[in-house]
């Protein structure tokens, strides 16, 4: 099953690159859902010869929270907003893809000097998760919109999770589910804040939005 694991690692990096090079917010959310789906499969590929309850729970948990609920909530958050169509990137499409490619190269270069102790299932896990984390950062930095920033954060989390799902027994299942749930609630609260922000900003002229930052009664 190692070949499947390698394939899903590469797919996850490709999807990150695809998110970077997508303009439409809805499109970005869909690609993210696909990425999370592939991510949720990795624990199954990881221990294909001896599947445990733990792998199955992680698969179901990741699939339900990250691949279904989170994209759904994000779509809900942008439904009422007129800006649905596209989000500008600060540095433009070509430069974004170039940047993403450089980040992948950098991640592989760094990972070449980081060796995992103990037995290793796939060489690709560390470089791919690093690359995904870095690209998540890049999405957060190069996009203006609140929703795309959340997406950047989520891509980053997926990168971190690629690490977690594949590597250890140090985390008991309960804590790993706690981590998943925390991320889900974070996105939920962010979506609510986005909704409130939209309401506030549509009812008042935008020019004064930064004028009295830090004031409160």
């Amino acid at each position, binding site marked *: 099953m190692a070949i499947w694991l390698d394939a899903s690692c590469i797919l996850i990096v490709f999807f990150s690159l695809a998110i970077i090079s997508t303009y439409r917010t809805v499109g970005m959310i869909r690609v993210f859902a696909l990425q999370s789906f592939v991510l949720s499969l990795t624990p199954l590929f990881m221990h294909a010869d001896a599947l445990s309850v733990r792998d199955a729970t992680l698969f179901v948990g990741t699939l339900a929270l990250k691949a279904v609920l989170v994209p759904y909530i994000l779509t809900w958050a942008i439904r009422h907003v007129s800006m649905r169509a596209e989000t500008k990137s600060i540095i433009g499409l070509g430069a974004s893809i170039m940047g993403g490619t450089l980040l992948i190269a950098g991640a592989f270069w760094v990972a070449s000097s980081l060796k995992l102790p103990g037995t290793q299932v796939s060489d690709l896990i560390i470089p791919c998760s690093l690359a995904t984390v870095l690209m998540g950062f890049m999405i957060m930095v190069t996009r203006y919109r609140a929703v795309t920033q959340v997406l950047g*954060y989520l891509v980053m989390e997926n990168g971190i999770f690629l690490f977690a799902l594949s590597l250890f027994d140090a*985390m008991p299942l309960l804590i790993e589910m706690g981590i998943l749930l925390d991320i889900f*609630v*974070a996105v939920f609260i*962010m979506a609510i*804040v986005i909704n409130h922000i939209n309401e506030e900003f549509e009812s008042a002229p935008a020019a004064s939005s930064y004028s009295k*930052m830090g004031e409160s009664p």
Partner: protein
Amino acid sequence: MLIFLILMPFLCAFLVFLPIGKKSRLWLLFGVSSIHAVIAGSFWRELPPPEFSAYLTLDPIGLIFLSVISFLFLSVSAYMIGYFDNEKRDGRTLVACLLFLLSTMTLVSVSYHMGLMWVAIETTTLFSAPLISFHRNKQSLEATWKYLLVCSVGIALALLGTFFLAIAAHDSHTLLLPELLAGQGSMTINWLKLSVIFLVVGYGCKMGLAPTHSWKPEAYGQATGMVVVIMAGALTQCAFLALVRVSQICFKTGLYEFYSSILVVTAVLSLIVPAVFMLGERNVKRLFAYSSVEHMGILVLGLSLGSAGIFGSLFHMINNALSKVVMFLTAGSIAQKYGSSRVGDVRGVIRAYPVTGIFLLFALFGGTGMFPFATFHSELMILNSAIMSGRYILFVIAIICLALIFTGLGKVVLEMVYGEPTEPILARKENFMMNAAIAVSACIMIVLGLWMPEPLKKMLQDAVSMIGA
């Protein structure tokens, strides 16, 4: 007992959503905080046994922290009873979120597994975010957004750091603290170093250490006084507790030199940044927020200076919380009375509200570490340990920054207290509960500044020897 302490506030938080009156909601919060405080106080007599196969363990370090948050919630809940006398809103979300926060912070102080600790700290972030936009307007939403995003990303990096730690401790197969410390010999140093860097950056974000402090002035400027006390006194110190745990690991693995060099850099930055930014600031809440960045810098500085510094640092953790009560609850009273916290709108407080005026002076002197307040005592310990370890340049930088911060804060606060009142104010009565809550903290701060009780001293020494210095 520990699990009861965690679950009780959590379950009571759901009671808040029942159709009960505003008053009973506030008394519920006060009751829960009191029970919490009584139980936490009883632990000083004897530490409770570990629970859930040692995932929940209360040790001296955790106990000091637990007592601090328990006291903070008690003060805030007493203050809120007075505050909501003059407030139209029903504060349902506020009370519920505070109870959830009490529960999760208790979990932080007793969690003995680095993963569980991460989960608990992330949960505190989530429950505190709705509190910032208590005054629902554009600026407070922006502040909430900034806080959520910066802290979530920071905490995500800490998660990565936690996973790196798990790789480093590959042979122990667990992140339980005692087993990590026992298996120090087999740790992979390179991965451990990487993990330490990520943990410092991640939890540093949450603590509001410079250069990732940017959410602090916005969030503290927008949130109401009671909330900021919890954020500045307890929430940020949750992350500090995590850094203390990391230092425990670093001491055992001989990585303390490396760890302390990272901490010194962030500490110095966190002293310089507020010193520079405070000089032009006119809003007292934002000023206090920068002062909070400075205090976090001092805490981290103490942590990097060996055993004497760590002793001072743990003591400063208590004093910082007390000073935050005085500072932000007073700022909250002023904001409620004047409808603003800018120095142009608020002047001559001492004539209109003598008691609040005196508290504002206490906030200035306590917050900047003047004699006889306890902050003076602990800052002196930390600076002293800098000199004893021969770091004279560090000492000079710290002194200059502290002096600048005093100037920046003093200029605004003194103008607020003694300045010519801009317009005649409708003198509302001072509220007894509000003032009592502030007065208790101010008194404890003065007492601790003059005399350290023997049990506290022993507990601090136990904590320092646990860290391994």
